[in-house]
């Protein structure tokens, strides 16, 4: 038995090496998605990024391989299978892949790994994420200008820092243009259940909201806004064709340039493990064209976007007061530190709600 195992292991190694040798000419890049590529939301946008990179780099890369619908608790095998199948670089796009990726990266020191939205790194494991909250600040400003009822409906999935920082950034923006406007928050405990998202949207509209925003994946809430003749924001991708009269803009994930750049680094042999957290400035977060708003609001939104991109405007510039009125900044700091934003679990002043615990 022992002998058989060794022989089998040797065979597996030979196969792996053969795979590597063959791929030396072409960089093989592989992706692991937590959802179906057909969610038209988070996983879909990563897949669009993959296709973009494949197009940009042409025959220098083989970027045709991905695994979709990989459950986080069962992802270790998926990464190992990809590593063994000759992938040179593997992108894992969900936070829950973190520890499995750490384990597999250790086992395959010659394969490069990139984990989205995590915080554990290794010499061959890089991390990357997008400052989604930057776009939400602009959305908050627009919402403040456009609301008539001073009530904004906000549909959210789960109370994780990415979602909380999004709500806070939205409120920061909202305050600047309309201190009287309030956010109403509904948690739906799912990233993707169109029916439930639609119900939440309708409940918020019935409760007086005239602008909807969402941190869930489907187009349903925006379509409800359109149906009711109200306004809203797209999420993850530009949803304008689903709501041509309602979408003000959309906070879109734009992974293509990043993937292209990282694959180029692999080709050039300059890839190294690092932490990337880019936003509007580097184009990782992009706002869809500003529509369905007067020119002055549009001009304001464009200026804010440019200021965020250039770094002139800091969304969490100190002091940042929490709900109790306490300044969350470290003493002497000009803005909140990245670590504080990355792990946010408190609301800024102005939000009349409690984070469910």
């Amino acid at each position, binding site marked *: 038995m022992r002998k058989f*195992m060794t022989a*089998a*292991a040797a*065979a*597996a190694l030979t*196969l792996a090496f053969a795979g590597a040798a063959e791929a030396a000419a072409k960089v093989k890049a*592989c992706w692991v998605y937590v959802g*179906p590529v057909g969610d038209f939301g988070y996983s879909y946008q990563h897949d669009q990024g993959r296709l973009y990179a494949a197009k940009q780099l042409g025959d220098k890369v083989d970027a*045709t*391989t*991905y*695994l*979709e*619908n990989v*459950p*986080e*608790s*069962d992802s*270790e*095998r*998926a990464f*190992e*299978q*990809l590593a*063994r*199948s000759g992938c040179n670089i593997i992108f894992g796009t969900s*936070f*829950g892949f*973190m*520890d499995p990726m750490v384990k597999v990266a250790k*086992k395959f020191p010659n394969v490069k790994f990139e984990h989205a939205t995590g*915080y554990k790194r290794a010499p061959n494991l890089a991390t990357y994420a997008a400052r989604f909250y930057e776009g939400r600040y602009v959305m908050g400003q627009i919402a403040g200008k456009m609301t008539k009822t001073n009530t904004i409906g906000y549909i959210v999935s*789960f*109370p*994780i*820092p990415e979602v*909380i920082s999004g709500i806070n950034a939205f409120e920061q923006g909202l305050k600047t243009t309309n201190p009287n406007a309030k956010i109403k928050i509904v948690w739906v*405990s799912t990233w993707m259940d169109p029916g439930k998202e639609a119900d939440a949207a309708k409940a918020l509209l019935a409760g007086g909201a005239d602008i909807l925003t969402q941190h869930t994946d489907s187009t349903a809430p925006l379509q409800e806004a359109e149906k009711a003749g109200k306004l809203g924001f797209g999420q993850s991708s530009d949803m304008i064709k689903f709501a041509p009269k309602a979408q003000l803009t959309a906070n879109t994930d734009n992974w293509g340039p990043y993937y292209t750049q990282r694959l180029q680094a692999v080709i050039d042999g300059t890839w190294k493990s690092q932490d990337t957290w880019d936003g509007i400035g580097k184009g990782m977060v992009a706002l869809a064209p500003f529509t369905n708003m007067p020119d002055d609001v549009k001009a304001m939104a464009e200026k804010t976007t440019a200021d965020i991109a250039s770094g002139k405007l800091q969304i969490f510039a100190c002091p940042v007061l929490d709900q109790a009125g306490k300044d969350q900044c470290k003493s002497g700091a000009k803005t909140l530190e990245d*670590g504080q934003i*990355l*792990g*946010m*679990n408190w609301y800024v002043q102005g939000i009349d709600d409690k984070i469910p*615990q």
Partner: protein
Amino acid sequence: MRIDLEARPKRSALREILSPVVALIVAIVIGGVVVAIMGRSPLAAFDVYFVEPLSQSYSLQAIAVKAAPLILIAVGLAFCYRANLWNIGAEGQFIAGGALGGWLGLVTHDGAYQAIGSWWILPAMMLLGILGGVLYAMIPAALRVWLNVSEILTSLMLVYVAQLTLDWLVRGPWKDPQGFNFPVTVNFDPEATLPILFDGGTLHLGVLFAPIVVIIAAVVFSKTIFGFQVRLAGSSPKAARFGGFDDKRIAFAAFAISGGLAGLAGIAEVSGKIGQLLTTISPGYGFSAIIVAFLGRLSPVGIFIGGLVLAVTFVGGEDAQIALKLPGDMTLAFQGVLLICVLAADVLARYRLRFRLGGKA
């Protein structure tokens, strides 16, 4: 046209053993046709799905790791199903076991309470896992036995409740304080982690529970009075009652075994494979195990084989996504077809079909 079923005069052991094999072959042929329609080579697909996973050490380990929880849960389900109790909530019992057992892993994190030695941690986690599954299975069992509430619906509804509760625990009270408020718990200490059997591999100690349980269950079914009672309670409840068996006790016992094994599978998965608690700890094992139970025709040895077959389709399904770019949902559809074929073959092993034109059924 009408179809008549005519009982075969003699039951043939060979025919009954062969029927799932024939079903598998038919399902593979159907799958091959679909693959061909999608413009890929069925032979290549067969190679990727069923040959490659079985020819490499690491994928053999992956299959064993994937099959173990399926087998454990399915053996438990066999007790329920044989007794005509339709527990379809093993997924919830798996989560309950994983959560309760995993709780001890969290509590003993960073060497806490280990001054008195650490040998007890793993056994205690396993026992808590079993306990969690048993207790959670007692809810539909009690409702069924005492109030005659459909266990199909209650056990299923409780799956959603278990999922949401674990979600709440991991996002709230149990989350890693150093984890930037992300929804994960701390990693278990090595003392709370089931050891890996081969260096660099994925095969962990918990995988061995599956063959052990299969052997015990096979003995229980064939050699003990309890096994006989379960079978009789399912096949002819009246006879069982005449025989003086306490069918309520049997129902509770069947649910307890089923829940306990699902809970054991849960904690083995959490402690052996994941090493921490996540918001979701099961990729649907509790539901896939139902397929396994029927693939194995509700017999422990059959379930052992059925679990391996299903695990091969999972691992092969991922290989097929990588090598042939076949969509992941192919695996799901194939599993459905396979189950349908097995159910049909099962009947055909015992009955002969008579087709006749006209006539009433």
